[in-house]
């Protein structure tokens, strides 16, 4: 088991390398010259060339990548082309904000999905199953930005209950330790949670109703186990597949966070990325993409390890 974990952790190295290469390349494949965004339209060519050389953008691509990677490993993500200051401090605070939002949204979505799916699966084909399934389908179909705006209109504009944007009062940083800050978290989390909740609901519903029709459930009933005893078995059997689906939803969560953070002006990596795209701020763009991707890789690894440890049928060699 330990050897297995070690090996899975080692896999991270080549995956991360590949991810960083893709992040680096994507930016360069994209059309548009970053220098154009920095300088006045009538700047002389020599100045542009000097600026280009200053940022190392005149080097061949592989060299650029090598230099970039070398710095990244040392924690130097370069300097923002727009703001003119190091990317790292901004990146750290943005990552923290995204982490908080993704965790709350993810937790909310996955827990809701498991509970709804479990109930719908046990009472398959009853009215409650149909209601929950309708809610799940609606959840999957609603776009983030639309739902975010509707929630803002209802709860912020009309009811004036919750803040419409930002992470804390007066532009303060994210925190989860006082109600004044938690208020800011509610609407973005709900918006982010809706799609994973819908997908997990549908998966868990199918899983649970499938498990309930298995022979071993009949055996358990035949042993005289009461309802709560049987539920334990259902959960243990549904857990590995549910976790796998949750792992896949992490990608959705990352993608969703970009939209949600933009709608709610949430100061996270998503918004940072969005801004960087529009401003062609290449170092910021590369850094945020890399962080988001690595975030995803690590979460997937964790899901995999948990899944392996709870399912005896997966060989752990």
């Amino acid at each position, binding site marked *: 088991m330990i050897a297995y974990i070690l090996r899975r952790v080692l896999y991270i190295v080549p995956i991360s390398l590949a991810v960083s290469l893709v992040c680096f390349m994507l930016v360069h494949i994209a059309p548009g010259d970053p220098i154009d965004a920095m300088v006045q339209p009538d700047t002389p060519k020599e100045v542009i060339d000097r600026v280009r050389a200053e940022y190392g953008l005149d080097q061949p691509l592989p060299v650029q990548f090598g230099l970039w990677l070398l710095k990244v490993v040392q924690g130097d993500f370069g300097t923002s082309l727009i703001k003119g200051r190091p990317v790292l401090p901004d990146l750290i605070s943005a990552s923290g904000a995204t982490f908080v939002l993704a965790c709350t949204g993810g937790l909310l979505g996955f827990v809701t999905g498991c509970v709804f799916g479990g109930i719908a699966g046990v009472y398959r084909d009853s009215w409650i199953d149909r209601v929950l399934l309708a809610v799940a389908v609606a959840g999957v179909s609603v776009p983030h930005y639309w739902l975010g705006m509707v929630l803002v209109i209802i709860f912020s504009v009309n009811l004036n209950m919750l803040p419409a944007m930002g992470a804390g009062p007066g532009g303060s940083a994210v925190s989860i330790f006082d109600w004044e800050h938690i208020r800011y978290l509610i609407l973005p989390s709900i918006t982010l949670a809706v799609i994973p909740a819908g997908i997990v609901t549908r998966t868990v519903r199918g899983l649970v109703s499938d498990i309930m029709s*298995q022979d071993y459930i009949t055996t358990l009933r035949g*042993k005289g186990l*009461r309802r709560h005893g049987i539920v334990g078995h259902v959960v243990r*059997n549904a857990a590995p597949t549910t976790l796998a689906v949750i792992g896949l939803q992490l990608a959705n969560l990352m993608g969703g966070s970009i939209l949600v953070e933009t709608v709610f002006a949430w100061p996270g990596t998503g918004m940072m990325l969005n801004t960087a795209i529009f401003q062609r701020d290449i170092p910021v763009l590369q850094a945020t993409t890399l962080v988001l991707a690595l975030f995803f890789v690590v979460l997937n690894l964790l899901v995999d390890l948990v899944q392996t440890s709870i399912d005896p049928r997966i060989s752990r060699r």
Partner: protein
Amino acid sequence: MTAPAPLVRARDLHVSFVSRDATVKAVNGVDLDLDAGEVLCILGESGSGKSVTLRALMRLNPPNKAVVSGELSVAGHDMVTISDRQLSSVRGKVVSMIFQEPMTALDPVYTIGRQIGETLVRHEGIGRREAEQRALELLELVQIPSAKRRLQAYPHELSGGLRQRAMIAMAISCRPQLLLADEPTTALDATVQIQILLLLRQLQQELGMGVIFVTHDLGVAGEIADRIAVMYAGRMVEAGSTVDVMRGPLHPYAKGLLGATVHSGLRGTRLTTIPGSPPDLRHPIEGCAFAPRCPHALETCSAGVPEFRPMQAGRAVRCFRSEEIAGATTRPPSRTTPQGVLLP
């Protein structure tokens, strides 16, 4: 001297499965008695209602689809009116069940020891650790080699024979008065099947359990049963002692089944067959359900359902014409093959 109450008593037991598309009348009036310590085989083909009858004895048919009516008592419990709460303390303790496919009937993500222990924890009020110890003794009782190691094994890590032994250990863990067995050897290899049959016979005698054993295999019934009941289209068509039924079946279907069973000494001959196939239980059946396939059927056979009439020596048969056609029932005497195998 009054006879003791039978362990199982069913009268006019009906089970139907209701769905949006159709109602399947799977069991249509079964009468059944089983004494303590007796082994009854219910013999029948797929769709005969044998498994449904068995499951009805502990109300294991899907609760939201199966409709049960009639009288049914097991070890003094009225299984038709019993509350869910009481039912769960009868199941596994007084009556338990083993299934055809031990691979799917055991929970794949729980160890064998945990699954056996679970029954003990539920019914005997003992702790996990003590249950584990008892589970070990049970695995030894069902002759699982290196039992201690197998306690920690998951079902997929065991062979088919060992899985079925573990299933049996689980079923007998609380020393039930009645063991229900739903084709427990059908999925096993021949050399393993006979081991499991012998084990069940031995445990039945040691524990004095009543056993109802469902099978489609006449040979298996011959190895284990005291009595045989033959089912067709949801009804009993013949019942009697194992020797009587296997030597001289009275019902044309039972006779046909015996004739169609391939065994030694038939080489180069055509097998006797029962023409056609069993009826579709989604549609109502007029008269004797076997009449369309019966070589002795008269027009009157389709007029009404024949009664399940008691005959001499504890036998019963559901046929209008069993006396008239009895002349054709004699089978050649048994003969011995070179291996000392006795065949009919």
